[in-house]
């Protein structure tokens, strides 16, 4: 990295921010799973306002990363997909919130506010 680029880079913990959690749709999924014990696909679809395809693709990414546990089963011959935040996902979500709060606190006051 050049000196100029380094000078222009944002100080503090921002480079360490978890990009997987940072994406708004995935953040919404994690936030909803953080406050409940578990929920199914339909519930998250209603709560997050995401489309079916969007939720499905983000769900796969979070599952691949080990942030959520997905359980697929049949209830009365109908498929039921239940999602649960894993310990790793819980930690990632808490860390992300702390890091973001720290970044926001460390930001200098805007010129208009001064």
């Amino acid at each position, binding site marked *: 990295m050049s000196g100029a680029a380094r000078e222009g880079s944002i100080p503090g913990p921002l480079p360490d921010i978890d990009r997987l*959690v*940072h*994406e*708004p749709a995935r*953040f919404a999924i994690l*936030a*909803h799973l*953080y*406050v*409940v*014990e*578990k*929920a*199914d*696909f*339909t*519930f*998250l*679809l*209603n*709560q997050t306002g995401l489309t*079916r395809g969007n939720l*499905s693709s983000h769900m796969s990414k979070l599952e691949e990363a080990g942030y959520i546990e997905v359980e*697929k089963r049949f209830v009365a011959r*109908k*498929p*039921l*997909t*239940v999602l649960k935040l894993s310990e790793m996902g819980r930690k990632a979500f808490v860390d*992300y*919130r*702390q*890091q*973001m*709060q720290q970044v*926001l606190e460390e930001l200098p006051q805007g010129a208009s506010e001064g």
Partner: protein
Amino acid sequence: MTGNIDLKQIERKAWTSFYQDGLWEFALGLAMMIIWIDMITQDRLEWLMPLAMFAVPLSIYLIKRFVVIPRVGYVKFGGERRARNFKAVAVLVVSVLIGIAMAFAAGGMIPDFHKWLGDNWIPIFFLFKALIIFSLLAWLMDYPPLYYSGTVFALGLGLGSLFNSHLIFLSSWLLILIPGIYMFVRFLMKYPLPTEEAAQ
């Protein structure tokens, strides 16, 4: 994305979306309607009452299971909510037991119970009991509409018995059931039944 979000608000929104289906209003409105039917038929359908009191909760359970949950989705709330729900169920059970004990006592099991307590005090007791129980339930369940329907139920039960007025019973079940039907229809419109694929 900012980490500065209100998780309590997200949890509360999830909670209310799962419970604002009007079923509590259905239960209370139908219970009051059964008492009203018993009153206007002058106890001719008294045999039907225990059956109806069993059928109402069963119907509510079946509607929740087969109409509400498939639309809103399945969710298991956290420990704090479950503990509050457990307390609400305990309050409800204790309340029903007190009600049954009072009904037996007033029905002649305790001789001179009416004379001892005074006829007018029994409906007043039920009014305040229902008022306290439903306010407690509304608070424990974090379900504000129950403050309204519980108060109407308590007033209807107490004043209806005190003045022996079927009009009070009629208006109270209508005042509870109509908002319940409105809430249920609004719920059905907000949460249409997802296709089988959408549930995956």
